[in-house]
């Protein structure tokens, strides 16, 4: 049942990404038409807008949440694709280790960056 449990979280993570990732896409790519969360106008990735988002605590929180679910969803999906190429138990353990380790490292780095940017 273990695999089906992971899969359940994979699907739930996907739903969360639809919401948070969708908001992220709107912020970043509808900055001309809408300008959501870009109070200084212009490009969403202009420093002033980036700094303003980092300043309000809700953004680092949501970014860290989005990072977590995206890494879990993506790496679990990648794991499935690699497993379905047909590999033995040893290779599967190695893939598990590399992906979990890589995912944790990326999550730690990205979370640190979000918090550090807020603290500046």
């Amino acid at each position, binding site marked *: *049942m*273990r695999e*089906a449990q992971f899969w*359940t979280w994979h699907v739930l993570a996907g739903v969360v990404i639809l919401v948070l990732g969708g908001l992220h896409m709107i912020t970043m790519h509808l900055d001309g038409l809408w300008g959501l969360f870009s109070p200084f106008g212009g490009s969403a990735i202009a420093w002033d807008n980036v700094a303003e988002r980092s300043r309000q605590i809700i953004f680092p929180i949501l970014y860290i949440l989005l990072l977590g679910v995206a890494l879990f969803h993506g790496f679990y999906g990648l794991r499935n694709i690699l497993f379905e190429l*047909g590999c033995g138990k040893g290779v599967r353990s190695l893939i598990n280790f590399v992906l979990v380790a890589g995912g944790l490292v990326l999550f730690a780095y990205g979370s640190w960056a979000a918090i550090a940017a807020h603290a500046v």
Partner: protein
Amino acid sequence: MDTDSKGTKDILFVVRRYNPETDGAPYNQEYTVLVEPGMTVLDGLHQIKNTQDATLVWRFSCRMGVCGSCGMLINGKPTLACNTQILHVTDRVLTVGPLPNFEIIKDLIPDLQPMFAKHISGRPHIHRDDWDPRAAPADEYYQTPEELIRFLQFSYCIKCGSCMAACPTLARDKSYLGPMPLAQVHRYNVDTRDGGFNERKKIAGGSAGVARCHYAGECSNVCPKGVDPARAIQLMKRDLVFSYLRLKKRKGVCGTIGPAPHAKRREGVPDPPPYTIEQKG
């Protein structure tokens, strides 16, 4: 000329041959068959064997689409040879090959043992904790038409292997259970006579189970009996998820008509015969 007024045509059969004793790998052999309207691929193969090449071998039995023996790859699609009329799928060339995603024993004969082993691993039988149905084999169960329809579609499976041949996951991952075994697990899970859901959960929800299905849907596209294994697997995913998240309480098993469940065999009911195949755990 290759057509006459009755619609008869010369069709070129390109048949995949393989003899393990003499060949390193399969190869194609061509035969020309005079095909009349209504002739099935199976009829064509018989014509070849009777009049052109007696060494060609394949499996068949009922020749009417109920036994599942003649599953083959016909013009790139896995289906039953007896169920496929030649002139419905081609007017010049017909390619016939063994089912993909199995090992080939000879010519058009796949080794279906792995599929059957996976099927058995899903415990495809009525399982009760309260009594052993073999103790009173003539007792009947209550079941409403609504309860019947929940599993009836999936019980039409004839184990032909076409779905297994069409599944993209099985193309690479030999350990995946596959559409047929999983559909049969679901067939018993939703049968109200059965109480074995918790046992089968471990198989269906395991690493070779439903998580390996991604709804490519080819299994349902090729199934010659309309079993729709893709539907069975997605419905089973819902059952597994709801069971894991404790969102739905499963109903109990249905009772029997007649005397209450027995602790011991009734008088005069003989013991079941010994198993004819080896039992493993």
